[in-house]
């Protein structure tokens, strides 16, 4: 059986890629996609722990489904914001959207 650490390492790598994407992407849609990567890293953790921890029943898997659901809603809201941004600024480059900056 594949040991738990493999899953966790994969999850960390996935989360790191997502984090990197979220920090470096200039495109708002890109950032959203990077966020999805991080969600999935978390989901992987949930499922892995649900499988490997003896006292766990199904909570981890249920939670993963919740996260997927919320992520879908979040994507919808995020994309709506991106649309709103584009309508107002004719761009989705987050560096150029600095209205709140001092």
């Amino acid at each position, binding site marked *: 059986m594949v040991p738990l650490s493999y899953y966790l390492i994969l999850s960390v790598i996935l989360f790191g890629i997502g*984090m990197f994407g*979220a*920090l*470096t992407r200039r495109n708002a849609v890109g*950032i959203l996609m990077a966020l999805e990567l991080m969600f999935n890293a978390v989901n992987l953790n949930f499922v892995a722990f649900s499988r490997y921890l003896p006292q766990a029943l199904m909570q981890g898997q249920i939670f993963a489904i919740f996260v997927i659901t919320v992520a879908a809603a979040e994507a919808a809201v995020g994309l709506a914001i991106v649309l709103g941004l584009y309508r107002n600024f004719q761009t989705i480059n*987050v*560096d150029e959207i*600095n*209205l*709140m*900056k*001092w």
Partner: protein
Amino acid sequence: MDMKLVALVPLLPLIGVLINGLFGAWIKERAHLIAVTAAGLSCLVAFVVFFQTLGGATLDWDVYPWLNVGDLKVPIGFLVDPLSTVMMLVVTFVGFLIHVYSIGYMHGDRGYARFFTYLNLFMFSMLMLVLANNYLLMFLGWEGVGLCSYLLIGFWYEKKSAADAGKKAFVVNRIGDAGFILGLFFIWTTFGSLKYTEVFAAVNPELGVGIYTTITLLLFVGATGKSAQLPLYVWLPDAMEGPTPVSALIHAATMVTAGVYMVARSNALFNLAPFSLEVVAWVGALTAVFAATIALVQNDIKRVVAYSTISQLGYMFLGAGAGAYPSAVFHLGTHAFFKALLFLGCGSVIHSLHGEQDMRKMGGLRKAMPITTWTFLLASLANAGIFPLAGFWSKDEILFNAFVRGLTIPWLLGLIGAFLTAFYMFRLFFQVFTGHFRGDHHTAHHLHESPPNMAYPLLVLGVLSVIAGLVLGFPPDHGLYHRYVAPIFEVAHESEAVVEHAVSAATEHAAGASELVMAAVSLAVALAGIGLAYLFYVKRPDIPAALADKLRGLYNLLLNKYWVDELYEAIFIHFGKRFCGFLWVVDARVVDGAVNGSSWLTMRLSAISSWHDMKIVDGLVNAIADLIQGGSFTLRRLQTGAIQNYILAMALGIVGMVAFYLFL
């Protein structure tokens, strides 16, 4: 009918005051309709009340509590007894006649409504004075009449002399009032009440003579001010600046007799203070002669009568001081009639001569003014004390009582005064009404008898001057009047016996026989005075001038009224002015200095305080604000607004926290 009607007597004039006072500007020439109606109705009610008292009924009625402070309880209340009724009748009746007279005399004056307002206000105050049932309410009336006197003397206030005379009367009266107030304080502390009934019930010789002497002397100081006795008489001659009806009403018939009334009212107190009685008698007698001598040489017709008033008031006090209160009040009443008549006669003369008051420019008015002349003659005879006119009975009674009580020198002074009175009254009469007119032709053509509304009061008063004494005062000391007022003074006689001030029965008996002799003596003296006046001013008009030349010093002394005014001016007024000057300096230097100094100090202190505020308090506040502003400028740069920066910070933070837990 109810005796409480008496409340209407002062109330009616007060209503007149309110109407004329508030709406005088619209009422103008019709003011007399209200004022005279008020005075007339008041007089009518007074008579109604009088008839009710004839059966011996009295009324002591507390209408409502006026002051209620601690133990001091003073009601507004009326006391109706024979004494106050007599006063009430004199005041309302003479007052009413003078109101009527004023219609003619004041006709066309600019202050017509104002005049009648004051006159009614005076009636109200005087009636409160007379009808009050306690000393404080009497004092209210006392001050009220003083105020009216001031207002009416200075009625023609555009004239400086009139305004000054008003002020003088007010100030001199104030001196007397101070004594009166102190007397009231003593009464209050001694007897614990100011109500007549309670005070007189509490009178008790065991308290010692001292307290009674103090109280009565202080009250008498008040009386000398109001009733123009030595040494406070100086205001009354000057008061002649007022309109003549005012002189007749206030300065002859009513207000100036308030002092006599007050002494008579307080007889229970005076009877226990023999020394005070002696003082009263002496002051009265001295004033009677003193004022009469001045009247001998005055040339202003009203001033002669004014000094005569002072002199007659002196007789009243002589009577009161002799313990003959009924006689004093009797003389008060008869004097009110004939002196009011004299003044109204003067007014009639002055009116006819267009304001001329110098007797040297009159003469021979008999033909032009028959009514005035005849009534004036009657009043002069009454004033001189000729049998059987009013003045004879009352004055004779006073002199007789003074003699019987052993006041020989005051009695002698009174007799001399009687001689002088007869002389100056007929000097005036002969100079004004007989001989030839000495004024200019223009005035001579306009000589005329006064209009009916001025003449009728003269006639009524003339009749009263003739018959009042005979009807009310015969036989002496036991006439109708005396039997009427006897109940009030009966008590007095009893307490008199206690201090052994009463005359022994033996003297009384001997006196009974001498009464006729005494009357004859005083009548002879008066006739001698008239005879001398006739000799001087009708038979040999050259004598007075020659005599004045011969006795230049004495003449000047009298003409200048013993220089009393100048003396007072030098002593009191000069001293007063110096004192005021001193006080002014104290004010300017010390008080103002202190005030200015404190303001200077305040300014300095506030300068320091303001510096402290601006530099230290504001500085601190600004420093804090600057610090926060500077800090926030620095910290603001953290807020890049770029989401990714925040996320980076968050990620680093998480890494840091994890590292912290993992490695520490």
